[in-house]
């Protein structure tokens, strides 16, 4: 039993939270993800960037089965993503997601938004769920808004609630799908600050974002995608200061140039 390579393999398994092998996906005729190979370790912070339509959002949406990949293997938290509903449910319990347009539930109060999933999915008792919800609302610095409805909050506050809602499930991995793209400029900072704090606490994060300052500051790795492929990935310093691919150079010159 106690063979060395066996334990080595296990420790690798425990370290890795996401592994994608030869993943391909099509939207009809359109080949949107092409031969994606990606492995993410626990505690890693990854920023995915690239021009629009390059497949970055599709990539992370495949990780909790909001999109279905047609070819290749995806393992999240050691569970294979396939057609088995049980696996999908299990993975979604461990993966939190924050959307560009928040997707809060407008008919529920902020507190109810945060308590919903713990109560119905994790079967947490009500009182405990409320405690958890208030804890994370305090962490994103809006506990005083708990009884309001999403429509009464600013965009930045709504996005912070969305982050708290995802955290209430105490996920192993957080996915951010352009979390600041729909926000007014003065609200971007409050959301990024929340995300930086989260990163500093050791949360595993995969962020699709155009905030290059954020990428420089928190990312362990920056992944550049174009036309459905991972074109380049590197540590932020090397990625920004010394891009290798022409496409990366072009992209960086376009977003950093102005």
């Amino acid at each position, binding site marked *: 039993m106690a063979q060395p390579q066996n334990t080595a393999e296990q420790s690798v398994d425990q370290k890795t939270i996401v592994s994608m092998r030869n993943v391909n996906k099509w939207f009809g005729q359109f080949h949107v993800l092409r031969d994606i190979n990606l492995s993410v370790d626990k505690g890693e912070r990854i920023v995915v960037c690239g021009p629009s339509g390059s497949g970055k959002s599709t990539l992370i949406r495949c990780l*909790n089965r909001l999109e279905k990949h047609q070819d290749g293997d995806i393992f999240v938290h050691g569970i294979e993503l396939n057609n088995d509903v049980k696996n999908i449910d299990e993975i979604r319990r461990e993966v939190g*997601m924050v959307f560009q347009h928040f997707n809060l539930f407008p008919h529920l109060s902020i507190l109810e938004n945060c308590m919903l999933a713990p109560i119905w999915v994790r079967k947490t008792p009500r009182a405990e769920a409320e405690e958890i919800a208030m804890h994370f609302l305090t962490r994103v610095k809006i506990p005083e808004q708990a009884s309001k409805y999403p429509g009464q909050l600013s965009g930045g506050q709504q996005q912070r609630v969305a982050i708290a*809602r995802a955290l209430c499930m105490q996920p192993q991995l957080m996915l951010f799908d352009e979390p600041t793209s729909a926000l007014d400029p003065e609200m971007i900072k409050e959301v990024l600050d929340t995300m930086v704090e989260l990163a500093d606490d050791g949360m595993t994060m995969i962020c699709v974002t155009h905030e290059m300052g954020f990428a420089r500051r928190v990312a362990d790795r920056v992944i550049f995608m174009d036309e459905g492929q991972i074109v380049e990935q590197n540590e932020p310093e090397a990625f920004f200061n010394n891009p290798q691919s022409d496409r990366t150079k072009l992209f960086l010159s376009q977003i950093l140039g102005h």
Partner: protein
Amino acid sequence: MTRKIIKAAPKKTTMKKAIPSDIDTQAGYVRIEDAPLLPPPPSEVGVTGWLYKNIFASMSDFGSIPAALKSVFVAVSTLFILYFLITQISGLLDFAIFSAVWSDPEGLKRQACWTVEQGGALPNGWHAACWPFIEAKAKFIFYGAYPNDDLWRVNLTYALGGFMLAWVMIERLPYRKIVGILLLTVYPVMATVLLTGGAFSISTGTIGGATILGLALITIGRLGKAGYVSGAFGDLALVAGVCGWLVILFAAVLAVFAIDFDLEAIDTRDWGGLLITLVVAITGIVASLPLGILLALGRRSEMPVARFLCTVFIEFWRGVPLITVLFMASVMLPLFMPEGVNFDMLLRALIGVTLFSAAYMAEVVRGGLQAIDKGQYEGADAVGLSYWQSMRLIILPQALTHVIPGIVNTFIGLFKDTALVSIVGIFDLLGAAQSTLADAAWSTPVQGLTGYLVVAVIFFVFCFGMSRYSMFMERKLNRSHKS
């Protein structure tokens, strides 16, 4: 306190009033003092404000010839409509109240409502309601041929239902959820027993068989939950478990129906009038909403078989007129049944009306489902809610709120369509009222008008009540998610 406003581009019309014209042309502008907060002009607030906004605003512009013409036109048509309303309403009040005959102390019947010319005592040219006729026929209009000695059973059913409904609707009362559940589960069984008399001939074998089947299904469900059933059959086992509980519930209802409560059995052919209208309308309303929701979800389902079946069902029932459905139920259905099996006519009409309005309801609900942003589905998926959880907790509450007007439209349409059951020989409110007109003992020129007026008022009260309650619900539910 000073505040800076750097003017970007001069807006001629608005700026001129606010600031002196000499700085209008300057590129930068700094406000030194805040503009004062002034009280609103009288045309905005109070009674004057209301009158102005709602009546006079549209007819007080005489600035140009077209505007003046428009104002005059609005004023004239307002006066005309007022005149029309006053004459109509006073005419109606005169007919129904002031000139009406209210009593018939001598028992003259039709002669009480005859003019001198017709052989009675009323002045010639009299034309108003004959209320003694309604008084004499009230029992038939409200209960049909239901036996007089058993009317308490109908009244008790009304009282119980009304009491529970009021409890659910008044928000300050406790246990509203429990009362609501009782209203939807226990009450229908009680109402059925009270109204029909119960003691149906259901064999103990049927009840026992259903119980055993239910228990068996529940056991399968338990095994599935414990993980003894593998693979795809695991989910089927869970479904079987749920079905098992439903079968047990059904067996329990059958058992209650079989009990003899020592009530006289009253055939549904003897029911009539408002009783029929309410039974058909309320059963239809209560059953068609959940059925419609399921059909709408089915039609939007990703499972091709469910989607196909639901679409076929909806399109079939929407494609035939209700009259045809009722005729089919009364004439065709018995032909397909084995000899001796005889479905109650009222039950057949009930099923027809329910399925018919469920198809309409399904399309209304589908409209609401389609109005929900895709992000809501994704948000619910991403936090790990199952399909039924996300429908129940996230999607349907929002979708149904959006389509309250459409749902109530269907309810009101259904309520009024109950009048159609009279064509298959069931005496609903209208049918019962109409049949009283044939009574020669009350034959007067105003008999029909009086009868129809009563029917119209009763229909209006129920439909208007539903309409108002739905508006209240809309406001209440909107408050929660609009700032």
